[in-house]
C-alpha cells in the first residue's frame, strides 16, 4: 500500500519534491483521482495527493481572469464563476462515472493536466487554449511560474502549453490561472434523427461551416442514444445528430431558425429547449451514453472530422460499433470488446494512414500494461518527448511511465 503524502500548500509540495528527488522516490500525482485509471499503470511507493491545495486566489470578472489552487474541485470553480454569470468555456468533463472512479468531481489541476475539454472545444478551444498561467513544482523540485494572468503573453516559451496535457509527468501543478468567459444567456439544440454516421458528418460540417455559430456538434448512434435520460432522444428511437447554439436569447431564437433551414435537407428535425439541451450535452460531455465498464475497452480517437466514420468502420471489431462522435466527427469515443489487444493494432494502423491519434481511456490494468495507451510516436518525436521529460524530471520521479515507457 503506497503511502499518501498530502501537502497543504505550495511550499509543502516543494518540500516533498525536494525529498523525493534527493531520495529518488517516485510519486504518483493525484488530484481527486477521477482519471487515475487512465494511462499505463504507474507503480510507485508514494502517492502525492494535491487536494489539500484548494481555494480561489484571484477572481476578476471584468478582466476575465480566475486563479485557484490546483486541488480546487471543479464544482467549486464553476459555482464561483456562476455567481458572476461566467464559465470555463472549454466545458471540462467529469469522467469519474464513466471511468468508474465514483462520482467525485475532478480538480482544476487534474483537468488541466489531462487537457480535458468538452463538446464546446470545437468552437471555444480546449483547456490548453484557456490556461493563462500556472504555478508548478518541477521534477527538479524547482518552483516555477509559467505564463501570467493576461491573455496576450508571448514572453518566453509557451510552457503553459507544454504542461497542460502532460498528465503530471513533468511537474506538479500548484496553482492554475484560466481565462473565463461570459456564460451564454440561452441555449438550444437542433437534432436530426435517423442519420448514419456518414450523413451525420456531412450535416455537422454544413452546420459548422454556416454563419450560425454552432458550439456543439455530436452524433449519437441509436444504440447509445437509447441510454439517454433525455426523453426527446430516447423517443426518437434512432440515431441522433445534435447541433447546439448558445448566446443571447434573441440571437439563439433567430439562429435556431436559420439552423433549421440549413439542416432541412438532412432529415427529420426537432428542437430541444435550453434545459433539455443542457442535459443532453452534459451526457455527451461526461460520456455517460457509453456502456458501463464490463468486458469492453474504450478508446478516445481524435481524427480528421470528415474521416471519423471511415476510421470507425475500419477498426471496429464486430458488427455494431458503439461509437460516440463529438467535435463534428473529429472526436470518437469507441467501444471495443476487450479480449486481446482491445483493437490497438487495428486502430494504430488505420490512424497512421488517416491521421490523428488514439488514447486508451478505459481498460483493465492488464490491457493498459500490454498495449500502447497513448499514440506511439515516430522516432524524432519520441526522442524529443524523452528529452523534454529529462529536462523537467530527469530522475523520473513524477508519474513514471504513465504516458510512455521512460516518460
Amino acid at each position, binding site marked *: 500500500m503506497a503511502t499518501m503524502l498530502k501537502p497543504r500548500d505550495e511550499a509543502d509540495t516543494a518540500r516533498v519534491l525536494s525529498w523525493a528527488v*534527493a531520495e529518488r522516490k517516485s510519486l504518483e500525482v493525484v488530484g481527486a483521482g477521477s482519471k487515475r485509471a487512465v494511462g499505463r499503470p504507474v507503480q510507485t511507493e508514494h502517492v502525492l495527493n494535491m487536494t489539500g491545495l484548494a481555494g480561489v486566489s484571484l477572481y476578476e470578472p471584468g478582466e476575465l481572469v480566475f486563479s485557484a489552487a490546483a486541488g480546487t474541485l471543479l464544482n467549486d470553480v464553476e459555482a464561483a464563476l456562476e455567481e458572476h454569470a461566467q464559465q470555463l468555456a472549454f466545458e471540462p468533463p467529469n469522467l469519474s462515472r464513466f471511468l468508474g472512479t465514483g462520482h467525485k468531481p475532478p480538480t482544476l489541476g487534474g483537468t488541466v493536466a489531462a487537457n480535458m475539454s468538452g463538446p464546446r472545444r470545437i468552437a471555444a478551444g480546449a483547456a490548453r487554449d484557456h490556461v493563462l498561467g500556472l504555478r508548478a513544482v518541477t521534477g527538479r523540485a524547482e518552483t516555477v511560474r509559467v505564463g501570467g494572468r*493576461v491573455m496576450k503573453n508571448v514572453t518566453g516559451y509557451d510552457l503553459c502549453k507544454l504542461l497542460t496535457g502532460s498528465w503530471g509527468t513533468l511537474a506538479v501543478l500548484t496553482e492554475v490561472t484560466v481565462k473565463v468567459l461570459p456564460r451564454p444567456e440561452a441555449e438550444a439544440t437542433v437534432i436530426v434523427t435517423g442519420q448514419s454516421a456518414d450523413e451525420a458528418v456531412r450535416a455537422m460540417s454544413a452546420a459548422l461551416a454556416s454563419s450560425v455559430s454552432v458550439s456543439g456538434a455530436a452524433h449519437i448512434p441509436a444504440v447509445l442514444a437509447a441510454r439517454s435520460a433525455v426523453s426527446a432522444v430516447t423517443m426518437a428511437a434512432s440515431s441522433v445528430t445534435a447541433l447546439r447554439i448558445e448566446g443571447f436569447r434573441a440571437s439563439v431564437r433567430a439562429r435556431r431558425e436559420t439552423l433549421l433551414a440549413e439542416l432541412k435537407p438532412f432529415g427529420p428535425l426537432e428542437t430541444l429547449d435550453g434545459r433539455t439541451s443542457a442535459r443532453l450535452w452534459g451526457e455527451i460531455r461526461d460520456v455517460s451514453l457509453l456502456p458501463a465498464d464490463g468486458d469492453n475497452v474504450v478508446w478516445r480517437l481524435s481524427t480528421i472530422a470528415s474521416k471519423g466514420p471511415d476510421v470507425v468502420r475500419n477498426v471496429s471489431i464486430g458488427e455494431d460499433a458503439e461509437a460516440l462522435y463529438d467535435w463534428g466527427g473529429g472526436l470518437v469515443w469507441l467501444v471495443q470488446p476487450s479480449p486481446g489487444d482491445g483493437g490497438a493494432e487495428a486502430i494504430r494502423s488505420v490512424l497512421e494512414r488517416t491521421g490523428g491519434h488514439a488514447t486508451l481511456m478505459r481498460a483493465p490494468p492488464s490491457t493498459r500494461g500490454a498495449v500502447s495507451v497513448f499514440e506511439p510516436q515516430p522516432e524524432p518525436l519520441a526522442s524529443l518527448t524523452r528529452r523534454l521529460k529529462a*529536462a523537467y524530471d530527469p530522475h523520473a520521479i513524477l508519474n513514471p511511465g504513465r504516458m510512455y515507457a521512460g516518460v
Partner: protein
Amino acid sequence: MLKMPDIDKKVLSRRGDIVAALAGMLPSDSLIWHETEMRVFQSDGLSAYRQMPMVVVLPKTTEQVANVLRYCHQNSIRVVPRGAGTSLSGGALPLADAVVVGMTKFNRILEIDYDNRCVVAQPGVTNLAISDAVGERSFYYAPDPSSQIACTIGGNVAENSGGVHCLKYGLTTNNVLGVELVLINGEVLRLGGKHLDAEAYDLLGLLVGSEGLLGIVTEVTVRILRRPETARAMLLGFASSRAAGDCVGAIIAQGIIPAGMEMMDRPAIHAAEAFVRAGYPLDVEALLIVEIDGPGVEVDALLSRVLEIAENHGAVHSRASASEEERALLWAGRKAAFPAVGRISPDYYCVDGTIPRAQLSHVLEQMAGLSKKYGLGLANVFHAGDGNLHPLILYDANKADELEKAERFGADILKLCVKVGGVLTGEHGVGVEKRDLMPVMFSEAELNQQQRVKCAFDARSLLNPGKMFPTLHRCAELGRMHIHRGQVPFPDIPRF
C-alpha cells in the same frame, strides 16, 4: 549597446567553403552572398538594429531546408530563420557568422479543405493571402496582426502573433492545427495536423511563439472560420483615456465580448487619419473602435447596448459603420497606425507590453511622465480588450542619442507593465529587443528551465542565438542536477 554572442571566427574564416557547399544544395537564385545584396537582409522591422549576415539562403523545398540545417549542424554554423522581415522585436536580426534562412519562396497555398475547415499553406504565404484564398466562400483566417498584408504565416507561428480580432478569436496558437518542422539536425517531423489536440505533450503549442529557436517550419495547417453574417464597427470618442478604459471594462462586465476593441490616443488618431481619411474625430483624447460581429439581429442589438454603455461613460463622439466598406476603412487607419506615425516623426519605436486592463489609466499617466522625462513624444495604440499596449515612442534616428533614449524609455515602460501585474511582450515577441529584460519577469530557475526546453531541441544553440535569453548556459551544465542551495537532503518522509 546590444551584446550579441561572440562571433565564431573559425566559421567566418571558412566562409568561402560554406558558400560553395550551400551552392551545391540550392538553385542559384536561392543563394545570396554578395555584400550589396546581403545588405537588404541585415534588418527586419526593428530597423534600428542592423547586422550583415555571413550568407543568405532562400530555399524552395523542405528537403533543401533539411539539407542546409543538417550541414550547419554538422559544421556548428549558426542559423537565423526569416519570414517577411516584419518582426518588431528583431527576431530576424542576423549574426555575422550565421546563415540567414529566408522562407519567402515557400509561398504557395497547398490545400483548402472546406469540409474540415482548414487550410494547408507554406510558411511564406502572407497572413492576408490565406483569408483572400478562402474569401470566395465567405471564410477567413481570424488572427489579423496589423502587418497581415505582408507578414508570413510562418512568422506568425514563430511569434504567436495576435492582432485586433484575437480578443474574440484567439491568437495564432489557438488557430494553428499542425506544422511540418525541420529540427536543427535536419530531422523533419510533423506536429498535429487536421485533427484536434496533441497525442502526448503539446509540442505544437510549445513551438508557436518560440521565435525561431526550436526549429524551422516548412508547412502550416490553420483553422479557417466562416465569416460572421454581419460585422459592424463603432467609433467612440472620449475626453479622457480613463473614461474610455472604464467603458471597456463595463462592456465586458455586461457579458459582451466584441470581435475587437481598440483604443488610440490623440497623436495616434491624427497620424492614422492623415493616411486613411476615415473621418476619425480629431478633437478627442481617446478613441475606441469597437467591432461586434455575428448574426445580424445580434449585432444591431449589441451595438445599441455598447452605445448606451459608452454614453453612460461620457462618450463625446459616436459613429457606427453603415457598410462593409466603411467598416474596413475605420479599421484601415488603426491597422496602419504604426507606420502612419512615420508621417509625424522621422522614426518611431513601437513598444509592446500587456497590463491588466484596469491599470490602463495609471500606466498612461506614468508614461506621460516618462515622456516628459526623456523629452520624446509618445502616441498610444492599445488592444483595449486584452490589455496589450503599444506605446509608440517618437524619435529621430539621425540625432545622436535619441535612439538610446527611446530604448531606455521603452525599457521603463516594460518594467512598469510587469510591476502592475502584466508581461513584457503581448504579441511582438522578445527577440533581441526585450531579451535583457527577461530577468525582470523570470527568476533564474525559471530562465534555466526555459533554456532546458531549448536544449531538448537544439543542444548546441545554433538556432537564432542571441534572441530571447540574455545569458546562455551550456546544455550540459543545465542538465546537471543540483539541489537547491540551503536545502539539505533528508531521508525522512515529510510530514505535514
